[in-house]
């Protein structure tokens, strides 16, 4: 019963920006497009029979469709919820995860935004505790939401900080 297991902790999950799905789909399409072009060029250059192209291109098309759908579902499954003392993060399509990070345990908060992220106006926020296993990050936050969340987490972290 994944619905129960990954239910929001009271208030509903804050979902991340669909811009992330758009970004990832563009990247996916670009990669597969390059592959398709390379396939065609190779076939011509090596003088391979043309009928070989069809299954290769179909395979790429199928990959594109599957990837497109998976990205949509994956992005839709990301979510976070701010509680009084903890941040809940859920993610994952195949391996579903739920991380609960107490604000008092945070060591620092990172915001990352690469050139593509900035083009889509999104950023990724990452929480670090003293444990490397925590792996609490949320990609695809609108830039101002990422900044707000960082400030809030920093404040709460300082207020509730606990010794190691």
């Amino acid at each position: 019963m994944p619905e129960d297991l990954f239910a929001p902790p009271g208030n509903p999950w804050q979902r991340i920006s669909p811009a992330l799905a758009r970004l990832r789909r563009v990247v996916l399409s670009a990669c597969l497009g390059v592959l398709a072009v390379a396939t065609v060029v190779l076939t011509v250059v090596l003088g391979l029979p043309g009928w070989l192209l069809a299954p290769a291109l179909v395979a790429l098309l199928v990959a594109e469709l599957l990837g497109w759908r998976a990205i949509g579902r994956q992005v839709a499954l990301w979510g976070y919820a701010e509680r009084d003392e903890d941040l809940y993060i859920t993610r994952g399509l195949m391996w579903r995860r739920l991380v609960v990070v107490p604000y008092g345990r945070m060591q620092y908060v990172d915001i990352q935004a690469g050139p593509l992220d900035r083009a889509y106006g999104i950023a990724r926020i990452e929480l670090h505790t003293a444990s490397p296993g925590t792996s609490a990050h949320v990609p695809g936050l609108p830039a101002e939401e990422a900044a707000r969340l960082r400030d809030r987490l920093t404040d709460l972290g300082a207020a509730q900080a606990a010794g190691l």
Partner: protein
Amino acid sequence: VTGQHPEPEPPSAGSGRHEEGQRLSPLTPVARGGILLLAVAATTWQDLLAGRIGPVGIALLAVLVGGAVFGWVSWLRTRFWIGADELRIDTGVLYHQSRRIRIDRLQGIDIVQPLLARLMGLAELKMDTAGGDREGSLAYLSLAEAHRVREVLLARRDAVRRGTGPGFHPGPPPGAHRDAEVGEGVEVEDAEVGEFAGVGDDLRPGGVASWEPPDHDLARLHLGMLLGSMLLAPETVALVLGGVALAVAGLFVDGLLVAPGLPVMIGIVLVQGRKLSAYYGFTVSQTRAGLQVRRGLFERSTQTIALARVQGVVVSEPVMWRPLGWARLDVSLAGYGSGSESDGSPSATTVMPVAPRPVVMALAADLLHGRDPALEAGADPDAVPLVAPPRSSRWLDPFARRFQASGLGDQLAVARAGWFTRRTHVVRHARVQSVRLVQGPVQRRLGLADVHLDSPPGPVHVLLRNRASVEARRLAEQERTLSRQARRAS
């Protein structure tokens, strides 16, 4: 913490004993260069006996003389001051270095005696500061002096932390006394000092100092047991089986077959020998600052485990030890990182290499409750009720599931797993960093999930493996609540 100072100025508040600082033992160059001396003697003794010195001997002697001069100048240039709130160590022959170690940041001070230094009655002091790096060392001091300096530094650290010591001034620079005053200070967005800031600070002010029983030994490892445990180790089994296989191959098939196997066997023997010499005379005793571990045959080392840094423990019971009821105890300490025994060197995380299980459990309880009477009741890992994974997990872990069990107690979270080596991971709720729930695709079909309790790097990782998924979420929420309460209480 450290810095380069081209012109070291005198310390603001010195110990008052020496304005010029203290020197290391004058025997230091000999202890450091002794190996070189031995090497020269060993390679040229034939020439020396015959009364002639060949070109090799001259070259080596030149190196020796150069080394001696360098060592002596280096000794001359090395001084240290124990200041009010910092330890300053000036070194350097060509480039001067002045290292300052904040005394309130000292986590522990280990005393190490390599063989040659030990024969000369010398010892090295290794400062262990928050952040995990061994940032400073004083080599060598006479053993008595090393103990004295260690005591002075630790006493001064406690005084600074209590804010009543000679090192306390009312207007400290921002952050300088954060540990002492804020106590629970984990600095957000401050990777460098924030990494392990607040380590060891949830002892209440004065909590350490008020507890002062005389030092006494809690457990001592007898040589017979150490040898027995090594005989019953997988390495020994591999050695014996490999030896038999090699002998058979050598006798009946071809003598050349032995050649590639031999180095491996010698390697195993050497590794075991290093373990023996490292664990020889292993003694755990109680001190004011925590548990003290002393060990070593040739190189004696003394290491103090600050109870406040204990994150969790692992009790390991290899299959061959179980009939004898023996176990091994490792500890996760903030800032020590993961200890591993893979290279044959004994890990710094080992609190007891082998002991009867009751002794190990008593040590584990001592480490877990940190001598806090309020926690003492719930600190026995064996008292935590464990639940085995449901039957459906047989599709994932058909064999391993028989040895898996996990549960949450009032104070502790416990997870046990493994047949060949049964490991019981224990962590205090107050030390859990974050709670993670993970469900893979197969687990989803079977209605199972894993709950990870994240700890700082180290041997301890409590994993509640393959719990029924409804229960898993409940466990995660329960752990969240328990660790919140425990954090508040401490």
